[in-house]
């Protein structure tokens, strides 16, 4: 399950001429209809009775380097932004492995806190340096990310009361989704 999109693409290219069009079709369809790919995968897993927690696996895959997750601008501030975003995704992807051990999980949360702070500081630096015309819009996007960060924090508080890890995975995935989609705009 833990293959990057790039690896899947490469494998598809090398293994079968038939797979390539399928990948291309799925990729395009997924872009047009968000959630389609997930629905299909879930159905396949269900049909095959595969015991895989999709949400957990998705979170674990978040650490993978994917070009679509990064900004293309070459300036140092934006490259720094890429690094900080990548660092945050990596730490979040560790949650499924760490959540069972309270001490280690608390340390992971501290690492997440540090990574979020560093990312937001980097975004602030970008905003400060490049006095954008559409700063308000960018600020709004940053605010959305902050909102999901806060939601993640609230989910953790609930988790420590009810012990339902799946909600933490979902919230972490939502945060990563926000990160992926806001980053190019910043």
């Amino acid at each position, binding site marked *: 399950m833990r293959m990057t999109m790039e690896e899947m693409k490469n494998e598809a290219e090398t293994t079968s001429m038939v797979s390539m069009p399928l990948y291309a079709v799925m990729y395009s369809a997924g872009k047009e209809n968000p959630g389609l790919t997930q629905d299909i995968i879930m159905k396949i897993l269900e049909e095959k009775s595969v015991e895989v927690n999709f949400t957990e696996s998705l979170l674990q895959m978040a650490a993978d380097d994917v070009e679509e997750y990064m900004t293309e601008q070459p300036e140092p501030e934006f490259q720094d932004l890429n690094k900080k975003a990548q660092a945050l995704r990596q730490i979040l992807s560790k949650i499924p492995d760490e959540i069972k051990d309270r001490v280690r999980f*608390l340390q992971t949360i*501290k690492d*997440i*806190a540090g990574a*979020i702070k560093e990312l*937001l500081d980097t975004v*602030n630096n970008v905003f400060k340096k490049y006095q954008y015309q559409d700063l308000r819009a960018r600020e709004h996007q940053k*605010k959305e990310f902050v909102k999901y960060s806060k939601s993640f924090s609230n989910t953790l508080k609930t988790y420590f009361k009810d012990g339902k890890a799946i909600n933490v995975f979902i919230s972490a995935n939502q945060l990563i989704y926000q990160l992926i989609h806001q980053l190019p705009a910043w």
Partner: protein
Amino acid sequence: MHSNCRQRGRNQNSPREIPPQTDFPTGCPMENEPGIVSPFKRVFLKGEKSRDKKAHEKVTERRPLHTVVLSLPERVEPDRLLSDYIEKEVKRAHQLPGHLTQEHDAVISLSAYNVKLAWRDGEDTILRVPIHDIAAVSYVRDDASHLVVLKTAQDPGISPSQSLCAESSRGLTTGSLSESGVGPVEACCLVILAAESKVAAEELCSLLGQVFQIVYTESTIDFLDRAIFDGASTPTHHLSLHSDDSSTKVDMKEPYETEASTFSFPECAHAGGVSPLSFCMQTAPHAKTVSESELSATAAELLQDYMLTLRTKLSSQEIQQFAALLHEYRDGASVHEFCINLRQLYGDSRKFLLLGLRPFIPEKDSQHFENFLETIGVKDGRGIITDSFGRYRRATSSTSTSTSNGNRAAGSSDDQSAPSEGDEWDRMISDISNDIEALGCSMDQDSA
């Protein structure tokens, strides 16, 4: 927390021997006859019976404990330790070894905030230790004694009984270490408690372990919230603010817009027939002012959090007193007076609430406030409540002339500039304090 279990190789005699029934020599033939009792024996036995009876009455007169029975590895609900407390019966041991009697009976009260030890009879407090001052908890088995030992930090603010404990146990600690040739020894205080049984001792250790876990967890989440809040504000441009030091130029942090803020507090549970609290402050219907909208959502949450905490910790009368003190401070009372009066209001058990005021103290008074916190032994970054409020520093410029006591620098052109964040905090505090006063009055009317 670490737990040690040691057994000394001494005789197996119980430290508490039941004294044999006193029996006089039977030389006197009259005493052998039924119905005839020596006058001395009669007085003695009567005294014994009376003492036993009093002791028994004392035990039966004791109030029931606010406790829960745990079957390890069962755990209590975290809320039980966060919003409530658990009591367990122990014996307070002053020194080791020692013969422990009913006079040593004590009650240990555990919560996520502190550990309190009080005498079982009379309920006088022996000591109170904040959780952040507990370095370690150990279970030591000494023959039939089951000791739970709390290692706590040396604190100048501790009570005389604690310093006595420190004196008696420091010698024990330093003596044993110096024998082994180890270097300089760090002094600490040991609180030694004797539990009734191994099960009771392990239960106590488990509860303390859970307390530590709650504290660590809450601190970590607060750390995360703090990091998010710190990163949320955006420094966008430089502005020079009129201040005492007119040459100062600072970054003006542009806080986030908030949505229409509604400070609504959940209702309190009924307590002894008092009607539930219901506190709601709506913003003006003609939409928020520009400055109000620029307050960060998290900053408003801080304020809301603090008010929520006060409502759970203070009575209605105390809330009114708090509002009055806040008013006085805003109207020109010195920060020193404000601190002293608040300290008096909160008392020793609730002095940690002062930390929550940090975000609302203007910069010019913050140094004095911090010094005051140090003098009363409320330290930075410890304990769950301190982390909830203690690490936040106001985002306003350090050169702001707007203060919550209403002072403004003469000739300041602040009147013509957009309201600073400090002004907005003051306005919010003023509104909140007005509403608190009104709340207190309405509660009095309800209960009348």
